């Protein structure tokens, strides 16, 4: 039985225009909407699959403000059955602070008799993009960590994980407990069903406060890159633009064989 804990973060949906907060310490989500990153959605899917294959339970955790409940409920709607909310302003937490808080959750759950032997995270958060919380968490716990894999399975107390490395597809195999960080692409996150959503609403979320004061990120401030002036020449719309496109190809001399 493996009880995975999946760490997710409420992040702004960056497909919309990015606006900074007044203090330039974060992205103002009021105009953007919020989501969970694709890497973490895949981590949730993997966690749910591992739990069901081993007869365990998949739990989800986030450190975030009150609204982050929305992301926890989304994970509950697709198969997680327990959720923990460390209520805090994530902007004021650096990656080492987050790792310490997540480690405290793992330890407290073990004390309470519901140990996790697999912790899944995204490879990198969609907003801060620090590429390190999972690795720092592993050092906090004294566990090994596999980074940036897209497929994970558990059998006989061992985790097998694989992903694309620089020289080909790489496989890791190691005994649990372990921390694994996930890249999207290896599994297809499921969509929530109506009964799934109903069930998610009924789950009581464990709320807690941080175990220590954050040292904070090393951020000075955020800035927006200067907009690049556009000098694009629009050749047309749809299929009707084809002659103009081929004129351009001729002009650039790339059509001749």
């Amino acid at each position, binding site marked *: 039985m493996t009880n995975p804990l999946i760490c997710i973060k409420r992040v702004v949906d960056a497909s919309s225009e990015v606006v900074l907060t007044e203090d330039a310490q974060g992205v103002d989500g009021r105009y953007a909407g919020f989501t969970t990153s694709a890497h973490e959605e895949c981590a949730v899917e993997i966690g749910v699959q591992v739990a069901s294959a081993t007869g365990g339970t998949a739990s989800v955790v986030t450190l975030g403000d009150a609204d982050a409940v929305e992301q926890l409920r989304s994970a509950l709607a697709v198969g997680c059955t327990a959720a923990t909310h460390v209520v805090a302003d994530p902007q004021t937490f650096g990656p080492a602070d987050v790792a310490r808080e997540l480690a405290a959750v793992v330890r407290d759950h073990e004390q309470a008799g519901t140990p996790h032997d697999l912790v899944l995270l995204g490879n990198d958060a969609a907003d801060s993009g620090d*590429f390190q919380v999972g690795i720092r968490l592993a050092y906090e716990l004294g566990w090994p960590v596999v980074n*940036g894999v897209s497929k994970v399975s558990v059998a006989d107390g061992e985790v097998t994980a694989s992903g694309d490395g620089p020289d080909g597809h790489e496989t890791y195999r190691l005994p649990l407990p372990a921390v694994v960080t996930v890249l999207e692409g290896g599994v297809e996150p499921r969509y929530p069903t109506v009964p799934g959503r109903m069930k998610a609403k009924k789950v009581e979320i464990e709320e807690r406060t941080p175990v220590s004061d954050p040292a904070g990120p090393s*951020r000075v401030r955020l*800035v927006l890159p200067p907009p690049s002036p556009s000098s694009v020449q629009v050749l047309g719309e749809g299929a009707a633009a084809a002659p103009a496109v081929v004129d*351009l190809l001729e002009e650039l001399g790339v059509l001749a064989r």
Partner: protein
Amino acid sequence: MIVVLVEVSPAGEAVETSREALTMARELSAAGGGVPIDAVVVGEPAEGLVPALASYGVRRVHALTGGAYDAFAGAAWAAGLLHVRERSGAVVVMAAGTSRGNEVLAHVAARSGVPMAANVLSFGGLSPFTVTRQVVGGAALEEMQLGQRPAVFTVAGHAVQAAPADAPGAGELVVETPDVAPADLVARVVSTDEPEPDLSGTLKSAKVVVGAGRGAGSADGFAEILELTDLLGASLGVSRVVTSLGWRPHHEQVGQTGSRISPDLYIPCGISGAIQHWAGCSSAKAILAINTDPDAPMVTKATHAVIGDLHEVIPAVNEEIRRRRAG
């Protein structure tokens, strides 16, 4: 001293992103009054690697050897880097912002109890040491202070152009066989399937590249795009979404973590133009974007654009090419 982790290709050469990191290390070295730059490579260096690194200004090449380094383990590579750093008193540890680079340096930072800055584009003041890096998928930049030593950071792919130094470094080879704790070898690659031959060569030198992104729709959505590629004698380049979803192989990826291309013409179809993709295609002489969204960054940055569904535009273009060739 500055220590730079240099990744080596299966052919035994320093990869482009690591050479970029060395190039940025030289800027840092010059700003700091000429502090020496040492490289760390894993495994016995192939013939020519040490002189090649010397040409980038490297003083010493530390080669990590021994059984612990036969297969990749992030913790073991970090232990090796820290072994070099401790004996040399280096104040900066750097790597390319690749999957390996970010992973190993996160281990280094965690073990040293210092922050790490991922995907740095440039550095600002030296005291306090500040860097600017990509966040929010490149939609924003973060200025970050790395006040503790060592300063640990990775360099965003193609943020600088790799260039050899005016004066080469001494390029002295030091073979190191540091002790690696068994715990650092638990999470270790146990098998790697057949290495993909480096097929990106033709993409990097192609005169015309046709690009495809999420807009292709599925793995089956490439027929017309491949036909256009063929008609133009072009190469196909894709976005990371396309490789992550397994629609096309990784060696076709263009961008920060893929190839950097500089064709006469790039035709990105259904690619939004995220900064990490742009990093790989910004040196194209002309860009013809085909996109349903007139406000997509790729459209606004392009020289030419067609607004529309690629599955309608491209067949029409292919047809027009065939018609003119026949006539």
